[in-house]
């Protein structure tokens, strides 16, 4: 086989996608957001909690997105806040997808009474909007960045468990599973080594959607004042604070708002690019 560079292979992969245009646009947007976040780890123009006497400044070269009512540099806070949002969303996905895959795989593969009971609970939980479920959990365990991450993670379990379960039910009677069985492969190995890689396509698109929902849910919760606590920045909370002064310094709200939109848009465009296209009505 001819050896090709990663770049070459990636290019071929993208051009064979159903919607390469969407995927490229998503990739560029995500890259920009990630660039801002990564630069923010090493360098921020001002400290995110640093107060200054220059309050409510309009955007300028000194303050790219102006300053808020306490004289803090909005751009620096956006850099910090988007990092927090990204980390919470990633943590949420790890918790939600991890537990969801585990629950879905085991219940789907084994079935039986346990499956019935667990899936009833999952169905009941699935009916509730993520934000609401997270609100209940936050009210039980208290607020704060990490608790919100856990609350959201738990709230996302049912959506993954349901998808993975139905995939496992579909796959468990397939020939390759029977074949593995005949070779004497144990149940756990069949579940995680043989079936799991065949579920990854479905998982990937669910992860992309889930990630977006996690970003939106985190932003919503921090907008409501739950989540990372002041003075630390978080995008939703910045919008909530900026709303009072929106008519004087719009960039206080527009800055963090646009970053949230870009973060979500990048991933959703990439997801859209991967999804297979259907035909048209007139054929």
């Amino acid at each position, binding site marked *: 086989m001819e050896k090709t560079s990663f770049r070459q292979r990636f290019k071929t992969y993208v051009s064979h996608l159903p919607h390469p245009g969407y995927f490229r646009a998503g990739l560029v947007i995500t890259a920009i957001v990630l660039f801002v976040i990564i630069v923010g780890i090493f360098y921020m123009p001002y400290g995110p909690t640093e107060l200054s006497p220059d309050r409510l400044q309009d955007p300028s070269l000194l303050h790219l997105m102006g300053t808020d009512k306490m004289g803090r540099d909005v751009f620096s806070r956006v850099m910090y806040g988007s990092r927090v949002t990204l980390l919470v969303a990633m943590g949420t996905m790890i918790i939600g997808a991890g537990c969801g895959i585990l629950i879905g795989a085991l219940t789907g593969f084994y079935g039986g009474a346990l499956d019935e009971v667990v899936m009833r609970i999952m169905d009941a939980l699935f009916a509730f*909007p993520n934000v609401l479920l997270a*609100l209940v959990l*936050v009210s039980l365990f208290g607020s704060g960045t990490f608790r919100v991450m856990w609350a959201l993670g738990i709230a996302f379990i049912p959506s993954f468990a349901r998808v993975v379960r139905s995939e496992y039910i579909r796959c468990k009677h397939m020939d390759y599973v029977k074949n593995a069985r005949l070779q004497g492969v144990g149940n756990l190995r069949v579940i995680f080594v043989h079936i799991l890689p065949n579920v990854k396509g479905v998982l990937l698109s669910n992860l992309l959607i889930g990630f977006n929902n996690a970003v939106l849910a985190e932003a919503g919760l921090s907008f409501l004042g739950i989540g990372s606590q002041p003075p630390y920045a978080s995008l939703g909370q910045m919008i909530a604070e900026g709303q009072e002064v929106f*008519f004087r310094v719009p960039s206080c709200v527009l800055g963090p708002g646009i970053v949230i939109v870009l973060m979500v848009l990048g991933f*959703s465009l990439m997801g859209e690019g991967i999804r297979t296209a259907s035909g048209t009505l007139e054929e």
Partner: protein
Amino acid sequence: MRYVFKKCGTMLLTLIVVSLCLFIAFWLISGDPATHILGTGATPERLQALREELGLNAPLFVRYFRWLKGFLTGDLGTSYVYSLPVRDLLASKIPVTFFLAVFSFVLVCLIGIPLGLYTGRHAGGRADKIIMVCNQVIMSIPPFFSGILISWVFGMILHLFAPGGYVPFSKSAPAFFSYMIFPAIAIALPRAAMTAKLLRGSILEEAGKDYTRTAYSRGNTVNGVLFHHVFKNAFLPVLTFLGMSLANMLAGSLVVERVFNIPGMSNTLLTSIGNRDYPVVLAAVMWIAFVIIVINLAVDLLYRVLDPRTAQE
């Protein structure tokens, strides 16, 4: 008919499970309500007397049934913080939140379904491409952000309404509606975009099936096939999505109420979460859960009516 009874039975079971879970969760976490009310400096005698008064000495299940009975008869308990019946705290607010959610739901149907039909009908055309890209962007805007933008554009630039100037329904119905339409749009926009996208995809999928070809071969026009054959089948997944959306919009209205300063459940619920005022939180959450479960039942029943195939399984 048997199906209806079975579904209602499942719904009741879900309700009991959910309420029991919520009750136990809040009971486990909340600690001793008597200490909450009187503070940590209270004497043991007074704590004991208050516990007796609140009926806290009874076993958990007795308390659960007492609470459930209260919930069903409209007695939601007493707030720890305000010492007022929870009912008085929530009574005027629950309808506002639900109205906002239902209003946005109507908007989602009014915007999303025609748009989905149009883009599905003209898939691949220029308008379709533009709308699809716009959809993708609109889906990424959180309602609270679009809410602020809407109040800026329509309130400050076009002067169509006064941001923050909520008018209660009892005072003036037209003013109430014309104020509520803006938050409703903010909640509805992303969902309408998703509905349109889902319906478009669903129509295109149905369009590839044999019965569509048969319908064409019998001399139907494109519109005839779309409305008489394809739409009925394509709408089914959208119905499930709309059911879930209504639940989601309830949560959405909790967030957007903040932006537009609407006196719904949002403020009460969040203050109560902050104050650890559990009877209020429990009652509010249980109310929302109750409505969501009833919506799910309605969607299941409607699905059955629209798709008789599910009856045969």
